[in-house]
């Protein structure tokens, strides 16, 4: 069963990350690399992606005559998806355990950040949105 594990943050969280010390950055990067490798080695890895920074995000609406309307202004409270993992596991409990591990990626001072990781089942058979 496929699950998506999503990591999000507000603009201020991203900005905070950009000011971490060299050691904290390295520890976090090393953790993420090791984490992806663990997922691959244990055969549950489907995919992982990182997304661009919030300043590059755009909100698009239909507009007129096929000309989309784009907007780069978001409220400070907006949660931006930073990245996700998709895993294929046998149980929800397994998905939570893996999410808990991701959540413990080290933050400032090398302590586990305990970031909230949202866990959602992925629908099989695409194009079924919300049903």
């Amino acid at each position, binding site marked *: 069963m496929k699950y998506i594990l999503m990591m999000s943050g507000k603009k201020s969280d991203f900005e905070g990350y950009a000011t*971490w010390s*060299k050691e904290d950055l*390295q520890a976090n990067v090393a953790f993420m690399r090791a984490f992806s490798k663990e997922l691959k080695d244990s055969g549950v890895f489907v995919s992982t992606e990182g997304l661009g*920074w919030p300043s590059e995000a755009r909100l698009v609406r239909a507009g007129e005559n096929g000309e989309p309307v784009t907007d780069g202004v978001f409220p400070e409270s907006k949660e931006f998806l930073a990245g996700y993992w998709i895993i294929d596991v046998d149980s929800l409990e397994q998905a939570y355990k893996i999410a808990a591990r991701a959540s413990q990626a080290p933050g400032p001072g090398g302590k586990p950040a305990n970031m909230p990781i949202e866990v959602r089942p992925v629908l099989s058979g695409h194009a079924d949105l919300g049903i």
Partner: protein
Amino acid sequence: MAEHTFDIPSEHLLRELAPQVLGVIARRFGDFAAAEDAVQEAMIAAFTQWPQQGVPGNPRGWLIQVACRRMTDQVRSDVARRDRETAVAREAETTSSSADIESDMDPDDTLILLFMCCHPALSRSSAIALTLRAVGGLTTAEIANAFLVPEATMAQRISRAKQTIKASGLSFRLPAAQERAERLPAVLHVLYLIFNEGYASSIGAQLQRLDLVREAIRLTRNTKALLPDNAEVVGLLALMLLTDARRTARTGPDEELIPLDKQDRTLWDRAEISEGIKLLTSALSKGPVGLYQLQAAIAAVHDEADRAEDTDWPQILALYDLLKRVSPSPMVTLNHAIAAAMVHGPAQGLQLLKALDTDPRLASHYRLDAVRAHLLEKMGDHEAAIKHYRIAATQTTSIPEQNYLLTQAARLAGD
């Protein structure tokens, strides 16, 4: 695709033969798109049968025979009578033997294919996909994997590319000399893009996906064999080798990015550097200096320095001066500014960057801020450098690059 235990030499043989077979079939039947499909099917047949039955005595003849049969089957299965009247149908009916066709082979066929697949009317991504399949002999699945898209998507890109060619009425023959000269830049550009895609996706010596770097170099070598006196083709090959020579040294054990001035030069491939310089020397003697030769020359100056501090920056600056005239672009201006900074000091470099502030092509492009940050650091303006390193980090989509930039900022902030 069926699992096959194909040995490497046979796989290489198949790839070398693919464009030769395609050339023969396309010219004989006059339908490039259909011929390409038929050859693709012959390749797949070879992939499944050769491991079991062994490579045939005349592998090219075998492929031609199978592709031929596919073409005639395809024609015969067309129900519309009017299709039977076409030249293709007539050809299919009268084709005696594939040995007959094989003798039709023309050494120019691969060149014809290159010009066709890199036609300026095609989008760059279509041209790359079609070139890798028709000239490179790669399978759709391999190409899809190299570009991390589903196979169906890549198949569509190739199919659309062939439709564009069909619609343009392009016939299977070598363009006239004048037209060749006009269209060669498009061919070289496609080869360069394939190289760049491979180089950008390589981490150290690891092959992440299909080795597009090796493919690009191989295709460019083949192009050089077909156009040995063309200075820009030779220049492009030199550029690829001189750049590839540094590939292993540009990332560290934790996949972190290592800039040129910090790389372990003992990891550079001396054989590639040596060949690159030899090729470049021969290219420069052939005529007016073009874009790829200039870029190769710059790479050569870097590669010739045993240590970063031995780099002949005045020579590099002179080459960028020339490149700015021959092929101006925001990236050239950026690199020129770096070289100017190395020769005349960071203030001079920063001054040159100002011209780029209003260039829309560089708006929110990470390199402008990254270079600015680097020069500001050299000036001793750490606060401004930190700011620009961080801005650059938010604009790059390369995670190793982002980590590198944030680490530079963190390093300065921690001082």
